[in-house]
């Protein structure tokens, strides 16, 4: 417990606020998945998993590299689950078909997370570089799937624009714009090796130099985008689910 409090104290206030908001959003989305139709389960679980992926900052065992890597895998699974949910919703809007059940969604997600855990356990401890690669892959997938989800949401909205919950999808559209900016800015820094992880790696492990000083303006801007868009993402997810809950009540 002392270690946990120490971690909280050491954390950047922005990161702490972001984790807290993701925690709230995760709780709301998970609660939403329990009381609503099957199609919402994938979407809700996905957003809940974002919280788990973001919680590494307050994880007392976060210094274990396998656990850090696991957080990134959970993040990747999160956006894939969310996309699967929106894709199902889009299919429903076109065909009015609703298949599957909630238990299968829960168990499938759990199965994937267990398989990811087993994958990490049977492989060597990931180096900081490997973890950074994982984080970069996670961000790339997030950015790509955010664009796809924005398009899916646009199509869903145009199909159901005169229904009660159509405005709720606009809220989800805002969520994905925020997430796109947050993850996109992070990916931008990673691609140009201006991210903090890379700076730490080259300082501690290699003799490589960096050109970060030449582009400090855009690096700082990107870092600000990551901070604010990250917080806004968490806030908007919580808000979107609360709004959707109100619309469906």
């Amino acid at each position, binding site marked *: 417990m002392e270690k946990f409090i120490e971690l909280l104290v050491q954390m950047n206030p922005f990161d702490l606020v972001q984790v807290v908001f993701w925690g709230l959003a995760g709780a709301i989305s998970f609660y939403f998945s329990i009381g*609503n*139709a099957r*199609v*919402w389960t994938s979407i809700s679980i996905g957003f809940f998993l974002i919280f788990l992926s973001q919680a590494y900052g307050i994880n007392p065992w976060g210094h274990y590299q396998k656990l850090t890597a696991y957080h990134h895998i959970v993040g990747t699974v999160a956006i894939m689950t969310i996309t699967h949910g929106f894709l199902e*919703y889009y299919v*429903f*809007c076109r*065909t*009015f*078909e*609703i298949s599957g059940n909630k238990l299968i969604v829960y168990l499938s997600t759990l199965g994937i997370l267990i398989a990811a855990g087993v994958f990490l356990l049977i492989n060597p401890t990931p180096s900081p570089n490997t973890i950074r690669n994982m984080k970069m892959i996670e961000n790339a997938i997030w950015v790509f799937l955010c664009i796809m989800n924005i398009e899916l949401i646009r199509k869903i909205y145009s*199909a*159901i*624009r*005169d*229904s*009660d*919950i*159509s405005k709720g999808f606009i809220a989800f559209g805002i969520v994905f714009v925020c997430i796109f900016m947050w993850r996109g800015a992070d990916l931008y820094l990673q691609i140009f090796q201006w991210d903090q992880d890379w700076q730490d790696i080259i300082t501690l492990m290699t003799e490589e130099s960096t050109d970060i000083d030449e582009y400090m303006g855009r690096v700082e801007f990107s870092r600000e985008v990551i901070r604010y868009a990250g917080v806004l993402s968490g806030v908007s997810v919580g808000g979107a689910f609360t709004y959707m809950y109100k*619309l*469906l*009540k």
Partner: protein
Amino acid sequence: MFLLPKGSALFENLAVSKLKLPDVLSKLNNGSFTGYASFVFQSSTAILVFEAGKLVSVIVEGKNGMRESGFQALSSLAELMVTTGSGALNVYKLSKDLTMCIHALLEGETLCKAQDLKLIDINALLKKIKDDHMNGCLRIYTDEHSAMIFYKDGNPLGFFHDGASDIETSPAESQKIAGTPGAKIDLFSTKSADELMGTNLLEFTNVQKIWDTCVALHKSVIDKTNTERQERDRKVLSQQLAELEEAVKSIVGEYVGRVGRGIVDKEISENGGNSCLVDADRAEKFIKGVERAAKLLVSGTNIKLMMEKLTSTISLAKSEF
């Protein structure tokens, strides 16, 4: 149709709808029946005259006075029996001679027709009947009454008048009608009873085939009528179902939006067409399907309102079908 003497009644008022013409004729033929059978329908009357089981004459006369005889009459009788739900059969046994006279009345040679009694010498006519040893029937009638005198070999067999049920021996009623102003006479003659025995319509008429043809024809008419009625009913039902489907789509569309119509289409298709709306089990499945899909699009309050409206519309329609 003339009123005929009843003689001895074998059957009276048998329901024709339960009888088959070949069976009736076969029974009378096999029983060497002498007399006549009358089939009385609302629109027509048929008289079949038998001599010792042989069918010597058949007459079918409509209310309009149109007469048919022979094969044509048998066909019409068969048709009437098959197509008419009502009708009664009377079978009267008569003497051989009187039967001959009935045949003369129905199908004999007409010697006089509607002759004004004032214009003819009745005594001369009666003398001629006697001298010619005539077999037949002299009918005397006015607009209100009629009487018949049956002759065998020129001698009166008996007298019959409307209001009586059988042959009488007294000519009083006949003379009374003959004395009425405006009275007219018909005179019909026929061959002797023995000669008539040479005629049997049943020998050269396939009654069974006539009957079967009529039954088949009637069945085809009924089948056609039924098919047309079913087709008409189907069209009406189809229109009613289409109207109900549209009403359901409007309700769902009102709460769910334009995708609501698609949801209704899909659920109707999955439950075997719009007839599911008036089938208890399938209607329940349909309503559940719509509710399940609507939960993804509509608030709980609106779903409740929509379901109430939907259920009451479908229940009302089911009670009307």
